[in-house]
């Protein structure tokens, strides 16, 4: 047993190694110095020194989302922990598995307003899936393993382990992973057979069906994505995916109607509105997706497959709830589908597709690229065309550029697309790209950015340079907080209060100051050449793509409106698209 005696900091490292952690993103400080000392004395786990703790969490999120593994973070007490809070909530909202280790003042000082003390478990309780304060070194091994179990099982999420300094320095008995029993946390993965049969009854008899799928399919893993593709093709039914679900089903497939929701396609939103059977898989009826609730898909029967019972019947009443993991549920569903020899109603389906093709013919994402000024949509389209042949990962910040990326970049496989959907955190994309690049050193990683968002975490250029991570920041520079300006245009009479990006830096010089490479593009004719230059350079690149500053993101379902009031372009002057009820919504 003496082999298992060690100090708390060594236990942390041992537990991380046992959990298969390869990389940890962090920033040191007094309370975690013992862990940093243990890191120094080993070479199994690589530490990436970020420049701000928020970025550590986003980097871990990018790492996690692009690999399916748990992302790992280490920060100090007090300001280290509070700086990490935004990242934790971001991971919570988007169901990303993270284990975040926070330093804490020694146990005998807790509650004393000690130097750099924060009530970290109190502050992070509502923005984590679970958190722990470790009070005894002997508990540390068990808690670490539990934390990983909770982070990755069921609906994934962030877990904080708060580590008082004395607990890290004292010796104790290490509990290996194999000896940890998880008492309470046992999410249901296998779906109830009767519920699946009921779902199949609806699926079999549908006349105007639609699959509405989301991030839960990506969470469930590559097998779930394959099973989804198989089921969708077997049925011949149309499918639309949420912002978080993109890539689970290949975007170029003709059965795919594109993204749905506020900035989703015309065909996807109309099909959602008019369908008679909705098969929701791993999506949570977010308000960006449903629009006005009492007019949401009024005539449909709804099936929802979700591992988290709290996602079911939260905003929208469903007729057939199925609790379970997507991959498990789809595997059983496909078996039953085959066993029952279901044949979809071919003639009804033909009429449904005819209707859908009419909506599709509207070509809602079209734009006019003529002349020199680069349209933002064109920039994304060219980025897609010039990168689609390689192993490419796309992250984004938040704003119009994010929506254009979702609309115009075709994601063909899961885990290729990292974006902040639920919290909408500007500053997410660049550190996330760093995390992705750590996991995939040879891949092309591009952060589709806005000039305002980039400035929220641009200090991470230092990290990218230090670890030779050749991430590309592709800024759609419209000199505005474009998404804010668009809402001001629609809701506040074009009074652009504080949404102009004043005093922007020279992005090329900024890149150079850090030792990165800068490119400015302002002519559509030479855009391709410059994108190729960006791809070829084996360094971090800031690509300052000057785009049409007045462009807005359409289609758009104004807040408070139902799907069938989707706007394809700016509303007319006499047409008040957004009522007072909608104006209070975000």
């Amino acid at each position, binding site marked *: 047993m003496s082999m298992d005696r060690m100090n708390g900091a060594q236990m942390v490292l041992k537990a991380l190694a046992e959990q298969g952690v390869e990389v940890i993103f962090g920033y040191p400080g007094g309370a975690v110095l013992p862990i940093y000392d243990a890191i120094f004395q080993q070479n199994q786990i690589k530490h990436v020194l970020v420049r701000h703790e928020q970025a550590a969490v986003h980097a871990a999120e990018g790492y996690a989302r692009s690999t399916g593994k748990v992302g790992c973070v280490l920060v100090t007490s007090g300001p280290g922990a509070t700086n990490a809070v935004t990242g934790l909530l971001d991971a919570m909202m988007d169901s990303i598995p993270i284990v975040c280790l926070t330093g804490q003042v020694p146990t005998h000082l807790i509650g004393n307003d000690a130097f750099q003390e924060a009530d970290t*478990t109190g502050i992070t309780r*509502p923005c984590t899936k679970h958190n722990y304060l470790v009070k005894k070194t002997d508990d540390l091994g068990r808690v670490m393993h539990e934390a990983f179990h*909770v982070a990755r099982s069921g609906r994934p999420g962030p877990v904080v382990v708060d580590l008082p300094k004395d607990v890290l320095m004292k010796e104790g008995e290490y509990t290996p992973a194999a000896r940890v029993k998880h*008492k309470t946390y046992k999410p249901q993965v296998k779906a109830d057979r009767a519920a699946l049969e009921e779902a199949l009854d609806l699926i079999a008899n549908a006349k105007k069906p639609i699959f509405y799928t989301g991030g839960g399919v990506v969470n469930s893993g590559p097998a779930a994505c394959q099973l989804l593709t198989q089921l969708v093709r077997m049925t011949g039914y149309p499918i639309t995916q949420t912002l978080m679900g993109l890539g689970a089903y290949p975007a170029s497939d003709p059965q795919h109607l594109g993204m749905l929701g506020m900035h989703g396609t015309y065909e996807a939103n109309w099909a959602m509105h008019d369908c008679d059977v909705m098969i929701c898989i791993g999506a949570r009826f977010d308000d960006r997706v449903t629009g006005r609730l009492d007019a949401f898909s009024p005539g449909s029967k709804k099936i929802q497959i979700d591992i*988290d019972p709290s996602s079911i019947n939260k905003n929208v009443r469903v007729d057939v709830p199925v609790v379970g993991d997507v991959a498990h549920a789809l595997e059983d569903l496909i078996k039953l589908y085959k066993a029952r020899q279901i044949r979809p109603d071919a003639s009804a389906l033909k009429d449904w597709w005819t209707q859908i093709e009419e909506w599709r013919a509207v070509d809602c994402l079209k734009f006019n690229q003529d002349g020199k000024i680069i349209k933002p949509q064109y920039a994304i389209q060219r980025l897609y065309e010039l990168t689609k042949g390689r192993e490419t990962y796309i992250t984004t910040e938040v704003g119009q550029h994010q929506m254009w990326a979702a609309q115009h970049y075709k994601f063909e496989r899961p885990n290729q697309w990292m974006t902040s959907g639920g919290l909408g955190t500007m500053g997410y994309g660049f550190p996330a790209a760093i995390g992705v690049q750590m996991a995939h050193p040879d891949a092309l990683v591009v952060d589709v950015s806005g000039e305002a968002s980039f400035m929220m975490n641009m200090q991470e250029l230092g990290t990218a340079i230090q670890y030779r991570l050749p991430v590309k920041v592709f800024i759609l520079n419209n000199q505005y907080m474009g998404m804010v300006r668009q809402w001001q245009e629609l809701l506040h009479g074009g009074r652009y209060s504080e949404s102009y990006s004043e005093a922007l830096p020279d992005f090329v010089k900024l890149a150079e100051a850090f030792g990165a490479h800068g490119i400015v593009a302002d002519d559509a004719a030479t855009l391709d050449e410059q994108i190729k230059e960006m791809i070829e350079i084996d360094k971090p690149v800031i690509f300052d793509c000057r785009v049409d500053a007045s462009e807005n993101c359409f289609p758009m379902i104004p807040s408070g409106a139902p799907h069938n009031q989707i706007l394809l372009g700016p509303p007319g002057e006499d047409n008040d698209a957004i009522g007072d009820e909608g104006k209070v919504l975000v």
Partner: protein
Amino acid sequence: MSNEVEEIVTHTIAVLVDNESGVLARVIGLFSGRGYNIESLTVAEVDPAEKLSRITLVTSGTPMVIEQIKAQLGRLVPVHKVRDLTVDGPSVSRELALVKVVGSGEKRVESLRIADIFRANVVDSTNESFVFEIVGKTDKLDAFIALMEPLGLVDVSRTGVAAIARGTGSI
């Protein structure tokens, strides 16, 4: 569901949790953070060997909100079980109150008489005051306290509801 008027219902929910620090904060934080009502909450350890506590909650909301509350409780990591005693068959619920009444003369006599009808016990008395102990359903306690109001009621301490399913089953 902005335009639908859904009725508000009251439910009694029993929750079995690990008796560890912070667990009550998690439950209460859930209610305050998500805007749910707590009408009553009681908690005490019920299984010292397994370190389990039982929380009994009385809450109200639309049926959809009640369903959310149960799902949200079930998702907390230290929660072992969630039982809705209002829907999972018949149950009994009890609450205890200590009620202090200060007064003299006719009012004092009257308070004793009512206490007798309600089977409340006198657990403390001075020349000018009584402390009554009353056990029963919430509405019985409410009625008793209302009757004491004009008779010199000065202080009330209530435990909140404890509830359990009837019959042989356990949580």
